[in-house]
């Protein structure tokens, strides 16, 4: 009887281990099955348009512009991105009135820092762009600054505005740091909002005047820095899924 008990106890003990092993085994199979479900994300070219520029063009009579955007996914996190556009803007200052008109291109990349759930394709991205523009700036008219005295009194002699309309071909180079996000609203259709900080690298200056506005860069101030915003709608043409 005593031996019998011992026997049963050993058997049970054995089962404890067996049970333990089988548990272990089960866990393993579960893990491998989870691994086998991989959500593939689409790779392809994405093309779109900046919607803020046509809206601005329609409400402002001193501005018109159009910008096409595109990016191409090269790895899980990286996208090559580019924007091309046309802008025309009339800058009215206190003493000068000038128009800049021309084209620009911005080239660079985006890094997607957002971990998507399941099969979602959203992005919170940061990126860099190199910008280049070539444009004509026309000094439409200017009024010589003959403001009198500390209290900005009326000039003693009549003031006449010079209309000359001299045009110079100019160009500008700049760097941009971009942050923004993209959301897939419908399948393959993305809306995106992004902001950028721009640093002017060089701008060709006209004789006896100044480059006040560059397409793609916006107003050029003394500091040579500026901000830009993009609101885009784009469509993804998927090539493969990885």
């Amino acid at each position, binding site marked *: 009887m005593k031996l019998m008990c011992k026997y049963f106890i050993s058997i049970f003990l054995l089962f404890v281990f067996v049970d333990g092993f089988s548990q272990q085994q089960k866990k393993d199979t579960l893990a491998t099955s989870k691994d086998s479900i991989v959500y593939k994300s689409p790779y392809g070219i994405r093309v779109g348009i900046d919607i803020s520029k046509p809206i601005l063009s329609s409400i402002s009579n001193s501005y018109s512009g159009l910008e096409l955007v595109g990016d191409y996914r090269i790895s899980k996190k990286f996208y090559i991105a580019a924007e091309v556009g046309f802008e025309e803007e009339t800058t009215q*200052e*206190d*003493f*000068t009135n000038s128009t800049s008109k021309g084209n620009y291109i911005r080239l660079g990349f985006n890094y997607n820092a957002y971990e998507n759930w399941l099969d979602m394709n959203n992005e919170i991205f940061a990126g860099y762009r190199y910008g280049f523009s070539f444009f004509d700036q026309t000094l439409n008219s*200017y*009024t*010589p*600054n*003959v*403001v*009198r*005295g*500390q209290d900005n009194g*009326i*000039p*003693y*002699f*009549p*003031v*006449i505005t*010079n209309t000359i309309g001299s045009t110079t071909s100019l160009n500008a180079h700049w760097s941009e740091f971009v942050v923004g*996000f993209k*959301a897939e609203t419908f399948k393959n259709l993305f*809306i995106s*909002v992004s*902001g950028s900080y721009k640093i002017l690298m060089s701008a060709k200056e006209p004789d*006896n*005047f*100044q480059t*006040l506005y560059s397409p793609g860069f916006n107003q050029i*101030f*003394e500091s040579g820095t500026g*901000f830009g*915003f993009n*609101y885009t709608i784009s469509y993804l043409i998927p090539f493969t899924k990885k």
Partner: protein
Amino acid sequence: MRKIVVLLFLSIIIYTACEKDDFCTQNPVTPNLVLEFYDANNRETLKNATSLYIWAENAQENDSIFENISANSLILPLNQFATETVYNFSQNDVVNQFTIKYTTEDVYVSRSCGFRVIFNDVSFESDNAWISSITPQTLTTIDNQNETHVQIFH
């Protein structure tokens, strides 16, 4: 979605809040003519011109720029849209015409200040009614008003 709306709203605020940040602090931008009155007998000492009325031909509404003043130093604007400015200096109803001839040049300063006018090849003439002499007769340029451009002896 709410996040997007908030961000969009914020961006629009930032966009429209970008007001111009430079103001023209230079004053005056276009230089005026600086003249000083000296004693004709003692050419080293300043002498006040008293009860002086000054007006220019072709000024806005032909107003006097100074009325009944007493000064030994004056700042007068030059007509930037002409090649000469004629000032009438009236002292005790004696009118002395003072003519400044020049060529103008518009020089760009900055976004906020715009263009200023500098005056080149300047020459001074006086019909010597109560002014006895002036010096110098010519100046190459007036591009600032840090120092006196012309001395008037009376």
